């Protein structure tokens, strides 16, 4: 469905109207480009509508992802200035807890390294913990407070960013439109996309197809190893505010970087503006199988009740889940594809796509317009998985 816009030629096309695509489109139009954002479904119909909205620095150790996260966090405030309070941004802070002394020691060591890399952290003892979270299990020996962690409602953020672009006249929103091919000229350079019913041209195509980024890359004839990692969340009945921060257990930090295929869960507990409490989230690699496994629900619930005993009497209302897009090295793919001139990738953000979306869009726009980059995109290069990085059609 198109917004009655007859235009078929653009400066750039963004494939995917999730939170990452929305941020790419936003920064591209800010840079003065005329842009089309295309999705085979509706706005936020992919993983953006199936996850949480944490913008985290607490779960990242020093390195390129943390740098990207710190930049992104700063940019999120800019985005909120643009779209207002409608994306429900809450700079509420995170609290990471440890269930035993040994874990607490490791957590604090980790926090110290993060501090050196620019993350604000505060060690907290059980007393301070209870000041931050009055309902927390008093037996928890301590944790670390991360005031920079935030939360947003990613569907609203994506939808409002895109709507604003549409209102400005610089963005065309094409939903229910599946891209079936990324077209190229004889030299191999991108010329646009083919959809089920149309041909749309642009010299730049941004692949922001999230978990389906590998399939979209294949439409341009290149490989991108992006795989689904399933996750479920539990949603409780609405309550008066009982959980004030994003609270999670320290083993989560280990899970994110894990390579195991099996189920991993860690209690991640937070309130929302709607009053519900979200309990997440499991991580498994089972392809695109969406059947609910009650042993996962049981573990998530048990872990949550262990951290907040009062949750035992709170009603579980529903569950939902989706498929995080992950790469073998757990870093996203951001930047130009050296194999296909004109093709940019902005996908594979795994469990951090919301948090990293702002910086991703910002850097993509810098790369497209040839401005100096605020951050090197080297670690996120699309060809880093390619053992034989030959350039398709570049010999012309």
């Amino acid at each position, binding site marked *: *469905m198109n917004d009655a816009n007859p235009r078929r030629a653009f400066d750039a096309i963004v494939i995917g109207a999730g939170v990452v695509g929305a941020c790419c489109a936003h920064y591209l139009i800010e840079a003065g480009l005329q842009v089309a954002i295309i999705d085979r479904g509706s706005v936020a119909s992919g993983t953006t509508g199936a996850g949480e909205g944490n913008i985290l620095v607490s779960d990242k150790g020093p390195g390129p992802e943390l740098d990207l996260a710190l930049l992104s966090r700063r940019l999120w405030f800019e985005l909120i200035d643009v779209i207002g309070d409608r994306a429900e941004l809450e700079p509420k802070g995170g609290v990471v807890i440890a269930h035993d002394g040994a874990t607490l020691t490791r957590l604090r060591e980790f926090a110290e390294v993060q501090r050196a890399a620019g993350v604000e952290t505060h060690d907290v003892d059980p007393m301070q913990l209870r000041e931050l979270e009055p309902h927390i299990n008093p037996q928890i020996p301590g944790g670390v407070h991360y005031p920079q962690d935030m939360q947003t409602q990613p569907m609203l953020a994506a939808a409002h960013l895109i*709507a604003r672009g549409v209102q400005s006249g610089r963005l065309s929103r094409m939903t229910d439109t599946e891209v079936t091919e990324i077209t190229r000229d004889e030299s191999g350079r991108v010329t646009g996309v083919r959809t089920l019913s149309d041909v749309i041209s642009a010299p730049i195509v941004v692949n922001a197809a999230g978990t389906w980024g590998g399939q979209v890359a294949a439409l341009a004839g290149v490989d991108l190893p992006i795989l689904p990692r399933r996750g479920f969340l539990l949603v409780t009945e609405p309550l008066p505010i009982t959980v004030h921060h994003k609270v999670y257990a320290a083993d989560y930090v280990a899970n994110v970087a894990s390579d195991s295929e099996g189920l991993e869960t860690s209690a991640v507990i937070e309130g929302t503006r*709607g009053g519900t409490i979200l309990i997440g989230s499991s991580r498994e690699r089972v392809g695109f199988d969406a059947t609910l496994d009650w042993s996962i629900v049981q573990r998530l619930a048990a872990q949550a009740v262990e951290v907040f005993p009062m949750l*035992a009497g709170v009603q*579980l209302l529903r569950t939902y889940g989706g498929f995080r897009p992950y790469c073998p090295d757990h870093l996203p793919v951001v930047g130009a594809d050296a194999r296909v001139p004109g093709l940019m990738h902005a996908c594979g953000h795994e469990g951090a796509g919301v948090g990293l979306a702002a910086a991703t869009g910002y850097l993509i726009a810098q790369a497209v317009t040839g401005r100096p980059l605020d951050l090197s995109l080297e670690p996120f290069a699309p060809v880093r998985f390619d053992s034989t990085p030959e350039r398709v059609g570049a010999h012309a």
Partner: protein
Amino acid sequence: MSGDPLDATERDVVVVGAGAAGMSAAYAAARAGCTVTIIDANPVAGGQYHRRRIDAATYRPRGCDDEAVWRRIHIESATTVYAVEIIDHGTQRIFGVRTRGDDRHRRDVDLVRARRLIIATGAYDRPLPVPGWDLPGVMTGGGAQALIKGSGVLPGNRVVVAGTGPFLLAVAQAILEAGGSVAAVVEANDPVALRRHRSALTNVGKAGELARFITSLTRHRVPYLRRHRVTRVHGDTTVTGVTLARVDASWHATPGTDRFIEADTLTLGYGFTAQTDLPAQLGCTLQVSADEGLAVTVDDDQATSVTGVYAAGESTGVGGVDLAGIEGLLAGAAVARSLDHPSPLRDEPALRRSRDRMRAFADALATAFPLRSGWRDDLEDDTVVCRCEEVPAGRIRNAITELGAHDARTVKLLTRAGMGWCQGRVCSLAVDRLCPRSATLDGQARAATRPVAIPVPLGAVADINLQSRRES
């Protein structure tokens, strides 16, 4: 493990729902020699139609009168199934049926194991929003009927029965029989169209039932207003009256035909939605039935697309209580056969023929009372559509026009419509119909998938003991 008291909870068959369908199914399966447990949310067996007071005689479906068989059936009342799962996928397929008792206590939960599952969960009312419908005094037709049958209480002193479908007549009849007063029956369609389906009608006794209802309205001087709709409900703290208007075939009100009638109660019902939560959890194939709602797809044996799962009655499509009973018998017999018991039914082919005839009739009836779109004109920006999350029509329209949401799922994500306590059971039809494009079958099935059919305490699902039973 022998001697484990928990083994007692493994049954050949668990039937969910103790209405006409479930009770008949349980009876047939038990009669053939299966061990059967029926689980029902209500305190008394009987379902929607045979709903009765707690002190009334026990409900027995037609043709199910051998009390020796009933003594072998275990009925778990006041217990709701919140989820079903496949515990063992092997040849010895085992289902886990997760239940919750009425008091929502965290210990009041159980996991029952079963080799076969019969889903007979019926249907629930399908209301559409209208300004003022959130006032006390507005209820569903089924709700009014439940009050009368279950508690012997009249829903109000002067009732307007509105919506579409033959059940409006049944609701009015129930109120009149209980000594109540019906101000009008307001039918949005023109059921004269029924005549076109005379061939289907003449085959089934149902046509006579409808004629009797209409005669009864005449006798009580209740106007049966066809091609009319309630376009607004009046009142400050409770209903004081409604505005009616004549409507065209698309349900758009004809200007200048508004009129006010006094009433303290309004029942709303635009047909029923089959209760498909549990089969959807297991991935059973669903279909769009003649009334445009979703229903579980079943074959000639009432078997769903998932091996070992059967369905009967209203969950497979709305069709009335007699059809539900026959489908139940057939489902019970098929389950028994699948467990190597002989069929308990004397003349199965005749039952199958009656079922097919009654299904055809139900489908004809449904197409005579279609859903049209004119009701959308009534909604003001502040008319609440999702009552659980208090989402007004204006916000939904804004999500569609400004934010580019084109389907119900996106509207839900952007407005929270359908995310509350009832999980969209009340508003999802309205939200879907407010969207520029209706959801695909896949989309509808996805929207109708409720992984937790009713709320359950986290402490209960966290209980490792419940979990270990399945591993024992």
